[in-house]
């Protein structure tokens, strides 16, 4: 079943075309890696999927058109590139993760829609029952048990990213969208994060759309790849992408230019 279908989507952002007639789909259980340089329109595209950006073309979730899929939006887990929060914010890791819980009423509305289209929602965390148990379960999945009572401002960048993943996981998302989640995080923290990502995709069977510059990680973790820079240049199986030398070269060049631009 297609969890997500993007057809002919174009997005104007600040007067220019940030996304130009993009088509791709995401199947149940996929871990789709989206690659593309900075400013390629990845974030803008993600915002359109979660209903926060006007666009032309069609986006479908579980086969539902946009006007019908609104009740499914709260069931999507979205982790943005950088979360800006007050550094002194008095909240512990568990408290932040529990912010991700959604009210029973919204869960029921969403599940009714999913049932109608025949999708068997995993309900992994909902089986657990109590809210506090769901939070604990997500903390375990993200490897944060030992940090649960730490104040959020005391964490490192890598730990913070895992907190936001746990916050997105606590509602047992039907789709997890991660926008360059390891930007500015050290290698060790990145590896920890990739392990978590693999686990939630294979063990928890959560469908994931993940944008990243790390081709090596994508080659290890993703099963499908999309390559975009305003337009979509490739969408298909990972093996196909990594065996296409020309595509890889183009991507590597644009990544290099970006690197020079960032550090030059």
């Amino acid at each position, binding site marked *: 079943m297609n969890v997500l279908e993007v057809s002919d989507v174009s997005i104007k952002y600040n007067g220019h075309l940030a996304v130009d007639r993009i088509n791709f789909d995401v199947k149940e259980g996929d871990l789709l890696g989206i690659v593309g340089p900075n400013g390629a329109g990845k974030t803008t595209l993600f915002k359109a999927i*979660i209903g*926060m950006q006007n666009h032309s073309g069609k986006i479908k979730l579980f086969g539902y058109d946009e006007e019908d899929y609104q009740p499914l*939006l*709260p069931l*999507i887990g*979205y982790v*943005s590139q950088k*979360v*800006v*929060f*007050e550094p*002194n*914010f*008095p*909240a*512990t890791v*568990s*408290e*932040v993760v529990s*912010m*991700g*819980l*959604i009210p029973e009423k*919204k869960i029921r509305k969403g599940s009714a829609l999913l049932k109608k289209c025949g999708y068997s929602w995993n309900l992994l965390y909902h089986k657990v029952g109590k809210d506090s148990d769901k939070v604990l379960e997500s903390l375990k999945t993200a490897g944060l048990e030992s940090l649960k*009572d730490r*104040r959020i401002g005391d964490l490192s960048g890598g730990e913070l990213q895992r907190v936001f993943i746990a*916050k997105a996981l606590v*509602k047992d998302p039907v789709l997890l969208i991660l926008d360059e989640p390891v930007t500015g995080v050290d290698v060790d923290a990145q590896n920890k994060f990739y392990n978590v990502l693999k686990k939630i995709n294979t063990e928890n069977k959560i469908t994931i759309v993940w944008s990243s510059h790390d081709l090596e990680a994508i080659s290890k973790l993703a099963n499908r790849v999309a390559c975009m820079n305003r337009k979509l240049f490739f969408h298909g199986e990972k093996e196909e992408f990594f065996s296409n030398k020309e595509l890889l070269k183009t991507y590597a060049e644009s990544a290099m230019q970006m690197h020079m631009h960032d550090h030059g």
Partner: protein
Amino acid sequence: MTLEILGYSFIQKGLVAGVAIAIICSLMGMFLVLRRYSLFGDALSHMAFGGISLGLFTGIYPLWTAFIVSVLGALGITRLRKSTKISGDAAIAVLLVSGLGIGVLLISATGGFKVDLFSFLFGSILLISFEDTLLILGISSGIVATLVALRKQLLHMTFDEEQAKVSGINTDKLNYIFVVLASITVITSMRLVGILLISALIVLPNITAIMFGKGFKKTVMLSISMSVISVVSGIILSYYLDLAPSGMIVMISVAMLVGTLVFKYVNVIGKSQDIQKTI
């Protein structure tokens, strides 16, 4: 000696109303401080000053006009911020000076400052009537109940507005409810410390509590406790020292903040000396 003063009905009323106000200011203030709206209370109270002057000018009960003017001002500024990209602090400045401007104009038209106005400016908790005490208790219970009911959404919006929106919270509506609650809190609390000192009750206990490095629930409880302690001890001390209760309450809150800062500083120095010894 303390028991004796608790026998006076004006002290009893003052303490009951004061504790209720301490609780709502601390609760509301936590969200205001964390959203970097610390001076919003000040802006609202200056709008209220305009409203009070309007009341005195027209002969309508000043607290009603204060309430209407500050709610309208707060809603207006929230809208203005959304549609014009005026930054938060500038929006607060606009609200503050317009309230004060209207106030000064109307006062000059009414014939200068009167005693009534002074009690609004500096608070008059010991002069409130039994009915006022009941009203303050009723309003405070309503505010506490609303905040408890909305706590999850409010906390999420305060932490990360975008994520709150993505998870299905109607942040526009919640923002409007929030500013109306803040306006009601300010108007209700004016009787305790007055227009000019209202920010102290909203800001001081919260920034002191945040410094203890605890989680959200514990920080809120700490802030409420500190707020209640400063109000109760402020009222009692001011009676014995024959000083203004509002100033006393505020200065006790300031003392708590300074005390916590010193304690933290000494602790840090102590720890670094311990580390040096081990090296």
